[in-house]
C-alpha cells in the first residue's frame, strides 16, 4: 500500500461521497424549486415564458374558488393534525397500559398507514355513499339519518379529514408509544405512592414528558396536512363544487388546464404557507425545549 500524500492531510471521509446525491437532489428537486419562483411570474407554456409580474398571484387571490382552496388547506391541516395528536395520544396511553391483546391492537391501528391511499380513498368513498353506503345504512338501522358525507359541500372536507385520521392515526400512535416508553417508570411509582389518580398521573407526568413526541406528531401531521393531495383527489376531486379543493388539488387542476404559470404560483403559495407555519413553530418548540 503506497500513500503518496502524508496521511494526516487526507481525511478518510471523502467529500465526493456527497456528489452523486447532491447532483440528483440539486437537479431534480432544488433547481425546479428555485426556478418556480421565476416561472410563477410568467405566462408559461413549457417552452416560452412571458414575464407578467405578479399577475398570477393577483389572479389567484381574486378568484374566490382559489382562495377557498387556500382556506380549505388550512382547515384541513389543522383538523387532521389536531385529531391525530389527540386520538394518537389517547390510543398510545391505552396501548401502553396493561390490557389484553395489546400487541395485536397496535398492529391493527398501524396497518392502514401502509396501505395504498388511493385504495383507502375509493373504499371509503363507496362506504360513504349517501343512500347505499354501509355507514349510512348502519346509522339508519340505529334510527339516525346519515348525512351526505361527500355530497354535502359543508361536510365533504371534514369527511375526507376523518378518513385521513383513520389512515394516519397509527403513525401518531406509534410515535407517542415510543415517547411514553421512554418515560421512566419511577415517576409513576412515586406518584402512585403519593396517591395520585390515573388522571393526575396522565396530566402531571405523561403529558409534560411526552412533549418531544408531541412536537414530532404535530409537525409531521401539519406538514402532511398542508401538502395533502392523493386522498382528497381519490375521494372528491375537490368537489362538490370547489368545497374540498386544497392548494395541492388546485395546482393539479391548473396544470391539467394548461395554466402552467398559475399552477406554479399555487406551488409558491404552498411553499410560503408551509414556511410561514412550520418555521416559527419549529423555532418556538426548540426554544421552549432549551428553556426547560
Amino acid at each position, binding site marked *: 500500500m503506497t500513500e503518496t500524500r502524508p496521511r494526516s492531510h487526507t481525511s478518510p471521509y471523502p*467529500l465526493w461521497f456527497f456528489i452523486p446525491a447532491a447532483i440528483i437532489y440539486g437537479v431534480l428537486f432544488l433547481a425546479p424549486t428555485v426556478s418556480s419562483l421565476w416561472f410563477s411570474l410568467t405566462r408559461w407554456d413549457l417552452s416560452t415564458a412571458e414575464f407578467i409580474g405578479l399577475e398570477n398571484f393577483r389572479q389567484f387571490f381574486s378568484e374566490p374558488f382559489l382562495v377557498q382552496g387556500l382556506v380549505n388547506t388550512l382547515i384541513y391541516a389543522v383538523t387532521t393534525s389536531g385529531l391525530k395528536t389527540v386520538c394518537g395520544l389517547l390510543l398510545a396511553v391505552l396501548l401502553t397500559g396493561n390490557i389484553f391483546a395489546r400487541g395485536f391492537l397496535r398492529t391493527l391501528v398501524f396497518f392502514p398507514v401502509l396501505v395504498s391511499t388511493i385504495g383507502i380513498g375509493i373504499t371509503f368513498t363507496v362506504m360513504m355513499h349517501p343512500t347505499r353506503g354501509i355507514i349510512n345504512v348502519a346509522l339508519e338501522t340505529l334510527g339516525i339519518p346519515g348525512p351526505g358525507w361527500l355530497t354535502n359541500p359543508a361536510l365533504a372536507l371534514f369527511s375526507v379529514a376523518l378518513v385521513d385520521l383513520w389512515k394516519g392515526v397509527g403513525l401518531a400512535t*406509534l410515535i407517542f408509544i415510543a415517547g411514553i416508553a421512554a418515560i421512566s417508570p419511577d415517576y409513576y411509582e412515586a406518584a402512585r405512592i403519593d396517591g395520585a389518580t390515573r388522571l393526575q398521573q396522565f396530566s402531571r407526568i405523561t403529558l409534560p414528558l411526552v412533549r418531544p413526541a408531541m412536537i414530532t406528531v404535530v409537525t409531521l401531521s401539519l406538514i402532511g396536512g398542508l401538502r395533502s393531495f392523493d386522498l382528497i383527489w381519490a375521494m372528491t376531486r375537490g368537489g362538490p363544487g370547489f368545497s374540498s379543493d386544497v392548494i395541492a388539488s388546485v395546482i393539479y387542476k391548473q396544470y391539467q388546464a394548461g395554466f402552467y404559470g398559475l399552477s406554479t404560483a399555487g406551488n409558491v403559495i404552498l411553499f410560503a404557507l408551509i414556511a410561514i407555519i412550520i418555521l416559527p413553530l419549529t423555532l418556538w418548540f426548540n426554544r421552549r425545549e432549551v428553556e426547560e
Partner: protein
Amino acid sequence: MRKIRPYVTGLIALAIAMVIFVLPFVFVLLQAAKSKPEASRLNFGLPEKWLLWDNLVAVFKARDYQLVLAYFNSTLITVVSVTILILLSAMVGYVMQRRKTGWNSVASVALFMGLMMPPAVVPTIGLLQELGLFKTISGMILIQVAYNLSFSTLLFRSFIATIPRDLDEAARIDGAKPWQIFFRVILPLLKPVTVTNIVVQSIAIFNDFTNPLYYLPGKENVTVQLTLYNFQSMYTSQYNLLFMNILLVTIPPLIVFIFFNRQIVAGMTAGAVKG
C-alpha cells in the same frame, strides 16, 4: 377485580378496533368476491357465490393485461430507486456524521427542505422534458430518489453515530482506502438500518400516486396505483373488479408488513424523531 380489568378494557378496545379498522378490509374482500350486480348494491352481505378467482382473472385481463404491466413497472421503479437511495444516502449520512466540514450545514438545510417542502411540479416536468426523462421509467426512478433522499439520509446519519470511530481507524491503519473503509467495513455494519430503509421506502414508493400521476403519464407507463385510479373512472359499474384491484394492491404491503413489522416500527419512529 384487579385481574379482570385488563381483559375487559382489552376486549372492549378489540371490539371497537374490529369495527373501525377491520370492517373496511372485510368489506373490500367481500366486494372483490361478488358478481357485478351484487357488488353494485354496495352492501355488506355475503356474496351468493364466491367469485374471487373469476374476478381476479377478469382484473388481470382488463385492458390487455394492464395490471401485469403495472405490477412490472411499479416493481421496477421500487427496486431500482430503493437500491440507489440506500447507496447514496448511506454515503451522505456517513460523511455528514463523521467529518466536520462547512458542507455539513449546507447538507443539513437541504435535508430539512427535502423533508418539509413539496416539489415544484410544473417546473420539474419542464426540466424532465428538456432532459428527455419525462414519461420514462428512469425519470420516475430519479425523481423518487431525489424526493426520498432526505428521509433515508436522516435514518442513516443517526444510526452511523452509534458505530465507533475506532473501527474506521483500525481499517485505516490496516491500509484500507477511504472508499474501502466505507464499502467493506461500514456498509455491512449498517444492515439493520438498511433493512428498515428498504422496507419503509419500498412501501412509500410502491404506494406513491401523486408523482407517477404527474411525471409518468401514458398507458405503457402505468403503475399499480394508477390502475386503481383508472379503474375508478372506468368501472363505476363494476365495483367487484374495482375492489379486486384494491385487494391486489393491498397484498404486497401486507406481506411486507407481516415479515418486517418490527423494522417498520423502528424505522417509522426513528425517522420521526426530530430531523
